[in-house]
């Protein structure tokens, strides 16, 4: 039998041991890091505490229903049809941030709690473009 292609089980063993050794390396690095930090604090006790992984303020949640968000989408769509890209910007700017984020999630272009506002806006822009391109029939 050829040794060209490792069997899946061998491949899994190889990957597992690779993961193990990477984890070991990382643990060593973490230990070094915290030792350095301890030494630093011993010398400079007034060193500002390391910033907490900033959760910021908790995100405000949109109170709109899926249907209401779809109406917002229709409104943006209509504005774009009437006045082009400006219609997009001007309509989206009337929406509170939490609704923009919720709309992105509703359109399947954003994750709750993860998507940034600018990503959400770009996602919505993409969906508007898609919907416009999908809509053309010979009756238009």
């Amino acid at each position, binding site marked *: 039998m050829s040794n060209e292609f490792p069997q899946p089980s061998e491949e899994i063993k190889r990957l597992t041991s690779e993961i193990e050794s990477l984890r070991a390396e990382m643990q060593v690095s973490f230990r070094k890091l915290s030792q350095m930090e301890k030494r630093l604090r011993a010398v400079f006790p007034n060193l500002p505490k390391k910033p907490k992984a900033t959760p910021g303020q908790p995100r405000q949640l949109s109170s709109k229903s899926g249907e209401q968000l*779809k109406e917002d989408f229709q409104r943006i769509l209509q504005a774009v049809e009437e006045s082009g890209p400006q219609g997009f910007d001007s309509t989206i700017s009337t929406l509170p941030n939490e609704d923009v984020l919720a709309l992105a*999630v509703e359109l399947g272009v954003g994750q709750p709690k993860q998507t940034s506002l600018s990503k959400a806006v770009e996602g919505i822009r993409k969906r508007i473009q898609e919907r416009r391109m*999908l*809509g053309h*029939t010979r009756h238009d």
Partner: protein
Amino acid sequence: MKEKKGPKSIATINFKGGVGKTTCTWCLGDLLSTFGKSNVLLFDLDAQMSLTQAITLNEDGSLVQQFQTWADKSFKKKKTIFHAIEEYTGAGNFNFGVNYEFIYQISDRYHFIPSVEDLYWLALDVIPRDKMQTFMRSLLAKITWSTNVQNYDYALFDCPPSFTLLSYSVLSVCDMILIPINPDFYAAKGVPLILNMLQMQIEPLPVPKIGVFMNKAKPYGGGMTKESRFYWDSVKDVCQKFSKKSGIKIQCFESPIYDRVKIKRAVTTGGVPPEFVSDFKSLWNNIERFINE
């Protein structure tokens, strides 16, 4: 003459390849004949023969011996669908006799008219369009009146992803056109395209009812993902507008078939996979309601 009802006919089509025309048509037929009480006649109209191959190949790729024997005989006796077309469009009368040399029996209630490679010739438009238009109606009448074969409740057609003369003869006379779509931009984009094409090609004849459903919907928590939903909403929007402006009856069925690998072996192993049965049942309920409206 005695009143005799022909089968209700449903043609599955989309110009977009790979959306699941063949798989879903086959599964619906299998569902009806296995779980229902109907006799089903399935047509493979695609010269690519993917349905014929799927039904008649063993999993190792060899042809099921029984089918091979049948197909050889069918060809020798000039009983393929291509021979039927040749005879219908030729100079003489259409005396094509329907029997089980023309129709292959997959099971008691599930029967099949396979494709043959010769159907490629139909792409060349060598046959007059008007003549070909009435072909399938005449063939179905022959099947209905034939005493050699059983009565069929439904005729299902797996159409090629193009508008051939043969598909024209089906699409212009069937009771319903069924369009599967997928949850992605290009599949959704194909919907206005196919609607335009159907209208342009079939009119001035009346365009049959059109049913649309989502295949390969991405599942999420008992429904489909938001992304799949977005494309489905877009398609519904297009269909609604198109229907309003053209007067063609279009219904979008709220009964998706989900994307699951299990379906891949459905045709070759014979039998709608159990996890798909309820999806296909809901789809069928919608189809039946619409077709009888």
